[in-house]
């Protein structure tokens, strides 16, 4: 890895690895490489990891790294992390990322704010749809709610501010824009994003082996579908 990785504590049971200061693909790939290594070679005492835009947070058991109360747990976990990083020479992703196609219906009943986004960007609604579904996105991280993806790669031309008054309930599957970000609501929740469409896919299903449909590192495209196709997909999903 080229850049030095900064380590700092998040309380007494987590350590943060910071790989950069801005959202960038090389940073993302470096984080993915560590996650992939941890998946293949779990480190005793590390409980779980949470990747984010520029950080990877590792939760650890202080008792494990204290060697039965004899050592400083933070020194112990820091040494384990340095050893782990030394093993990872190449920051390139080891496996090609998955490319998923996410069907989205952009009809007015599912995209009540499409016109708001269109007028804000001085585009026609059709042009907003074309730009939104024409890009390839990267799932940088999952957070905010179960299965909620933070995506990178949206055309800045269709950026739009959040709503002044958040909705008290946004349905699961709603596709929205907030600033230069786009995302998909994974469970029904209050939310302030401009809603431009909806996917019939279930982003979060606790009964699946992998409850979150999307994982950090995935790539995806939005594929426009009609209301009729939305209905067919929905029947297929349930």
């Amino acid at each position, binding site marked *: 890895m080229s850049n030095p990785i900064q380590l*700092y*504590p*998040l*309380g*007494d*049971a*987590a350590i*943060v690895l910071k790989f950069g200061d801005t*959202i960038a693909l090389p940073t993302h790939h470096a984080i993915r490489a560590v*996650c992939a290594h941890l998946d293949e070679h779990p480190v005793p005492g590390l*409980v*779980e*990891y*949470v*990747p*984010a*835009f*520029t*950080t990877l*947070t590792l*939760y650890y058991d*202080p*008792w494990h790294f*204290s060697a039965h*109360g004899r050592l*400083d*747990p*933070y020194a112990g976990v820091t040494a384990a992390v340095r050893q782990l990083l030394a093993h990872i020479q190449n920051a390139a992703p080891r496996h090609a990322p998955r490319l998923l196609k996410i069907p989205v219906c952009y009809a007015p009943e599912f995209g009540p704010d499409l016109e708001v986004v269109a007028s804000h960007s001085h585009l026609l609604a059709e042009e907003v749809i074309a730009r939104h579904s024409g890009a390839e996105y990267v799932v940088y*991280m*999952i*957070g*905010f*709610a*179960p*299965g*909620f993806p*933070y995506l990178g790669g949206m055309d800045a031309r269709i950026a739009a501010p959040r709503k002044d008054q958040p909705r008290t309930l946004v349905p699961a599957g709603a596709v929205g824009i907030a600033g230069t970000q786009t995302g998909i609501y*994974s*469970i029904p*929740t209050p939310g302030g994003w401009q809603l431009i469409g909806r996917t019939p896919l279930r982003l*979060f299903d*606790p*009964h699946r082996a*992998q*409850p*979150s449909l999307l*994982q*950090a590192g995935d790539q995806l495209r939005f594929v426009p579908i009609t209301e009729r196709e939305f209905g067919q997909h929905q029947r297929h999903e349930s």
Partner: protein
Amino acid sequence: MSLSILRAGLLTTIQDLGRVGYQREGIVVGGAMDAVALRLANALVGNPDSAAGLEITLLGPEIRFDADHIIAVTGADLSPTIRGERVRSYRPFLVRQGTVLKFGAARAGCRAYLAVAGSFTLPRIMGSHATYVRAQLGGLHGAALQAGDGIPCLGPPPGKLLTELTARLLNKSWVEASWSIAPPPVAGNPVIRVTQGPEYELFPAASQAALWSSAFTVSAASDRMGYRLLGPPLPLVQAQELLSSAVTFGTVQVPPDGNPIVLMADRQTTGGYPRIAQVISADFSRLAQVALGKSITFQEVSLPEAHALYLGQQHTLQQLLHTLRLKTCS
């Protein structure tokens, strides 16, 4: 065999030690707010550490036992009674079929835990029974318990504890064990020890000073997700947009209005507000027992001190759990 909920109380949920390993998918850990109290309740009735129990918040429920059960109550003192007789916490007891356990008002603390020997026969979702209401996960139908609910559970397994209690029951409807463990002290307005948060240095000296010198009230808008604190606001010099990153139990984050929020069991996995402080693991239980309207003050400790306090607490807890295992198992 089951427990019947006759009255639900303010917020009664099924909890265990939480959902571990799914935070990368955005799934909250959840679980007991006061994990130490739940672990002790389970140990008092001979359950494994991973068993689920009831978390009872402030105003207690009424529960009927539809079979003979061994149970224990720990955590806050929510005035538990059976037929008007006071039930003592931190002591296992045997109830006969049909007995009703009533919880009343909170006398000390905020959350009581009830464990049943054998525990509940409910499915685990992602390895856990923890109820996460917002995503309707775990527990009983993913929801807080309601009057009319029945929780299926096993009966007490044969062993020392059952033998002892059965011998003492005679013709009474319930009987306590002859022994108990000392309840941890519950402070009304406790001092909560914290380390500096990752963004502590971003706060101006006035905000840092206010953090250490002021009392903060746990506001009525607090819940299992977080404690919203009211006190002097802790503004940044300039609002900062931070990239979302992981947060954890006890993270003290400060939104733009300057009023700090302490993240608790049902916290989201990531957040973007500056983190001024982090509650040490050894004080999670104490914090979980602070009732709405009470005040806390923060005291700074170093990371090595936080670790020493946690390891000391765990050492004592492990010894106690070991002792209880010897007392309850055959």
